[in-house]
């Protein structure tokens, strides 16, 4: 599509509705006289535009003003305290409100979490302690004797055994 054609098509709907400035409208008219493709497009769109105009402008709608006011009164009577509260909450910026909820939730959350943790994990901890004791008792002491000489492990084992001998 040529550039002027693109420009014309962009303005075609406003042109059909006579909403273009005089200068622009004249430019488009000139282009339409020289470009058969755009002219065809304009004719088809004009036909569609005119067909839309054949839809009836108005329809008999009922008066809903009394219904709206009744609803307002009805809703207004429903728990005014909570409605007022919700309205106030919506006025507070969302980040501030979520921060408030977060800080309010920390103390009960921590308390509840601690209690639940001890209640649920008490038996698990007892069994873990038993396993540790058994493992320590059964572990042979010479497992550290295999470090190569002058290695850091060997030096450490020697130091520990010397100090225990001194004691």
């Amino acid at each position, binding site marked *: 599509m040529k550039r002027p054609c693109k420009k014309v*098509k962009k303005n075609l709907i406003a042109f059909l509705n006579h909403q273009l400035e005089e200068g622009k409208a004249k430019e488009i008219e000139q282009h339409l006289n020289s470009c058969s493709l755009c002219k065809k497009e304009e004719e088809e769109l004009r036909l569609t535009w005119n067909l839309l105009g054949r839809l009836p402008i108005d*329809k008999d*709608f009922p008066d809903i003003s009394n219904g709206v*006011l009744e609803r307002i009164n009805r809703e207004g009577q429903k728990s005014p305290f909570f409605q007022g509260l919700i309205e106030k909450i919506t006025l507070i910026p969302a980040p501030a409100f979520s921060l408030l909820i977060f800080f309010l939730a920390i103390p009960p959350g921590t308390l509840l979490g601690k209690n639940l943790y001890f209640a649920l994990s008490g038996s698990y901890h007892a069994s873990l302690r038993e396993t540790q004791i058994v493992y320590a008792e059964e572990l042979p002491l010479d497992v550290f004797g295999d470090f190569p000489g002058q290695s850091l492990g060997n030096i450490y084992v020697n130091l520990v055994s010397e100090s225990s001998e001194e004691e």
Partner: protein
Amino acid sequence: MVKENKDKYLSDPDNELMKRIGSGEIAAFKPLVEKYQRMVMATIYRYTGSSHDVEDLAQEIFFKVFKAAKRYTPQAKFSTWLYRIVANHCFNYRRSQKRDAIVTSLDHSFPGREDEPSLQLAGPKEKQPENQVQQQELETALRRAISELPDRQRMAIVLYRFEGLSYKEITKVLGCSLSSVESLLFRAMTNLKEKLKKLDFT
């Protein structure tokens, strides 16, 4: 400059009414509803293509307006703000319809339903003059074609062709740029043209 605009909108009688409503004067809402109810219902009717939920939707919209009155600050004409609420409410309505999968058959959404006054007035087709039948067929085809447009294109064409809003006003209602509105309207018209061509109306 901005302040000047704000002052200009403050002196708008509709905005004055909104101010009174916001300060708790419920009675001030009635004239506002009376003034704009036709506009609201006509927009919903043209957008949904059906008169079925028009009243309910319009009531919900005015209820929203009432609730928003307390924090309403005029930044444009009241009608532009109202159109914005109408457009958003219509989009939400469409979304909820899709979500609930209550996709009513198109044939049920247009004149041809028992509750559509235009058909009730017209009576059986055989007894109507030919041009009246043609007009009815055309209306059905047009409403069908409009209802098949994507949401934003449909709202743009309703606002521009039927409600007479300018491009600038549509940018405020739909919250988009001028070139987006140009493109929405051009695509909407091209789609309509193609749909009507298929039905031998163009």
